[in-house]
């Protein structure tokens, strides 16, 4: 609020009344501004609040999107998050030739929920590709403006994708960009022209923020790789893989240790791609981390998002890698494109996270699944976390397409980005 100076006047006078009126007026204005600046808590972290759930259900009903129901027992610390089952896709509640939602969005949602498109960059590119199809098939209804109607058309699609799998920070930024571009279309622009403009905008965004950014980051990162290095990577990060492949092509001599973790076991795919190029690799599970770390000279990590207070949000297990690497005095370098920087502030992994299907933790060996009836055991809960946050003290350097910056400079980049926009 504002600090309003009210000076006491001994008797009622017009000045006094005017002052009171002005102060009331300004508090009301400030109240509105306060509401505008402070964002409400997003619905996907308030699942245990029945009022919020009801509001979400009403919103989805209005948009004609089916509501996906939660599955299984949730560990109490994470009961404020959604937990869905992969065996209950959202498409079983939709009509088969989907009329409400564009077919490419339905396909995208299916690919998200089944994990066929996984990884921050892949999800953003697939999202933008689907939006291109939507824009191509869009026709402005009569008496409507493209700049307003198209944004309204995209809202139910975004809700649908959110129901299939919670949106990533990179997807959120891409959506913000598209919405801004659509709203900036002048009203006298013809439909065909507007559509081609939007399609080129999307292509340019992908080219600049993802493809060229990857090239720039590789260029900076290769400076940090010297011959004889032993580089540790965790899980699968498309950017880190890209860097290592390019470094190998530029004839740097190094070897890679791929650390992997259950249940996703994404490291296997990273391993395959590196070995296919001819890079010599070692593969360990995260439980062997402290055993292997004395051999390591650097750690390269990918990020899902970089938060405004310098914390790195990445695949669960990354913070452990950074912690142990700090203990062994091994430098930790995080590679992240600027379009993944987000304005959220988080200091722990509980408040905002994603819960994956708990059935993924079940393993079948020799025909026996030990945890088959885990739901019947009342005191047992399976937790499949997807992300965790790493504090900036464990990260030595962040390599972005703007250059190599320390973790604490992230808010500066965000401020500069906002000024640009």
């Amino acid at each position: 609020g504002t600090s309003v100076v009210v000076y006491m006047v001994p008797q009622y006078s017009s000045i006094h009344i005017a002052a009171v009126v002005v102060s009331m007026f300004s508090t009301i204005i400030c109240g509105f501004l306060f509401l505008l600046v402070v964002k409400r808590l997003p619905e996907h972290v308030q699942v245990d609040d029945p009022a919020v759930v009801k509001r979400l259900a009403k919103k989805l009903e209005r948009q004609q999107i089916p509501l996906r129901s939660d599955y299984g027992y949730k560990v109490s610390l994470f009961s404020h998050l959604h937990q869905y089952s992969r065996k209950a896709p959202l498409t079983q509640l939709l009509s088969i030739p989907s009329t409400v939602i564009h077919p490419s969005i339905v396909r995208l949602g299916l690919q998200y929920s089944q994990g066929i498109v996984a990884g921050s960059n892949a999800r953003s590119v697939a999202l933008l590709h689907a939006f291109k199809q939507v824009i191509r098939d869009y026709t402005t209804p009569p008496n409507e403006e493209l700049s307003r109607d198209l944004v309204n058309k995209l809202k139910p699609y975004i809700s649908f994708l959110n129901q299939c799998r919670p949106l990533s920070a990179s997807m959120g930024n891409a959506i913000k960009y598209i919405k801004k571009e659509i709203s900036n279309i002048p009203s006298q622009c013809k439909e065909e022209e507007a559509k081609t403009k939007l399609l080129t905008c999307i292509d340019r965004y992908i080219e600049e923020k993802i493809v060229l950014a990857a090239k720039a980051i590789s260029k900076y990162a290769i400076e940090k790789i010297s011959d004889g290095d032993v580089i540790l990577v965790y899980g699968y990060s498309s950017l880190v893989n890209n860097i290592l492949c390019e470094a190998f092509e530029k004839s740097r001599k190094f070897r890679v240790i791929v650390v992997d973790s259950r249940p996703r076991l994404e490291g296997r795919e990273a391993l395959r791609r590196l070995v296919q190029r001819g890079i010599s690799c070692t593969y360990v599970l995260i439980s062997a981390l402290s055993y292997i770390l004395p051999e390591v000279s650097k750690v390269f990590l990918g990020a899902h998002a970089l938060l405004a207070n310098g914390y790195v949000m990445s695949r669960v297990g990354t913070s452990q890698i950074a912690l142990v690497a700090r203990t062994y005095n091994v430098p930790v370098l995080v590679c992240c494109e600027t379009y993944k920087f987000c304005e959220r502030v988080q200091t722990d992994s509980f408040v905002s996270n994603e819960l994956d299907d708990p059935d993924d933790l079940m393993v079948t060996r020799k025909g026996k699944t030990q945890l088959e009836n885990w739901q019947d055991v009342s005191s047992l809960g399976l937790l499949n976390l997807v992300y965790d946050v790493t504090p900036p003290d464990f990260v030595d350097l962040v390599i972005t397409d703007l250059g190599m910056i320390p973790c604490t400079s992230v808010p500066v980049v965000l401020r500069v980005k906002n000024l640009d926009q």
Partner: protein
Amino acid sequence: MELQAVLMAAGGGSRMMDLTYNTPKPLLPVGNKPLIWYPLNLLERVGFEEVIVITTKEVQKMISTDPKVKLDVKMKLDLVCIQEDADMGTADALRHIQQKVKTDVLVVSCDLITDAALHEVVDLFRAHNATLSMLMSKAHEFTETVPGQKGKKKTGEQRDFVGVDGTGKRLLFMANEADLDEGVVIRKSIMRKHPRMHIKTGLVDAHLYCLKKSVVDFLADNKSISSIRGELVPYLVRKQFSKSTNSPKVIDETHQNLKKNDSNVNLEIQISSRDEELLHLTQERSCWNDHRGDMSDAYHGGRLRCYVHIMDEGICYRVNTLAAYIEANRLAPKLFDEPAVHPSAVVSERCLIGADSIIGASCQISDKTSIKRSTIGVSTTVREKVKVTNSIIMHGVTIEEGCNIQGSVICSNAVIGRGADIKYCLVGSAQRIEPDAERTNEVIVGTDQLMEI
């Protein structure tokens, strides 16, 4: 628009000629509804709003004129007639409607009765950008005795060999025993890519296919393929692993439209799915792979993919033999929850109607009759002291007093004389059984039908 439904209702029912020589197969009554109602109901429940029905002129006439044939479906039916004597296969029929096909198609046969969750088949089609996605079910043994079968049941028709990968979703191999000379031959290229293959023989093909639009265009150019099930599906399954479809060709989207109209278009380009550059980028950045253990990318870089959803439980029948017809009549009531006894039927109080029997509209059931596990058609008259067990009585039949009908199929407009004892027989359409006749395990059809054969 995402999918267009095409219902194939022009088949002749060649394996149950005794039933179909008078009534065309799509209109055979199953549970007192025409056979064609079941796939139409399935499509309507799932959310389709219009269906292209390919049928003969005879069926079209009967649907529009015959009051007994009730098609209370709310969808818009686009009836396309083909000549009955043209001997068109299912693929020929698809070629015939090529102009109407604007998007990917879902081809259903009129003799499919199932309660399958269609979204499983379509999700495979969508998620993996597949060229073909089909439905299969574990075959159930038919337990009912089939009338007119002398001796032991034949060892069955030629088996189908279906090869799927470890997940049970990807279709790797499909061949019919009739096409194989000495044994099952599997190419080394398939074994190199999918070292573990499960070959199943006890599966029923539901004849429900999701096909990409490019396949329909391909059919238009290749007039030699006439049957979807017999020729097109095995061809597509084989083509997944052929060398030419796997050469990397990133075809720009703007060229797609040009090449579609070009008549000299390359077969591989038509069939292989067209991935845009962005999709390629997505796949490159995504950490998903459908297999592990070798060095290749997801889907082994193949552009053409065929998927199958195999139902473990649930009803799935193709009513193309007499045994299947009888079995379907037993189970059809489970698929819709209308009252077993139609409200307009006149049923006298002193008759015993079992809980699993269906009585059609405008029937007249007289005293002291006992009807167990049977289906009585529309406008049928059943006189006193009749015992009907395990039988299917179609429309307009008259059963005189004192008859005993067991395990039989009585076709429409037949008359069973009084005191007749019919066991495990098939009485053809409009036949008359003389009073006090005793028939066991016979097929009684008219002489004119015999002469046709």
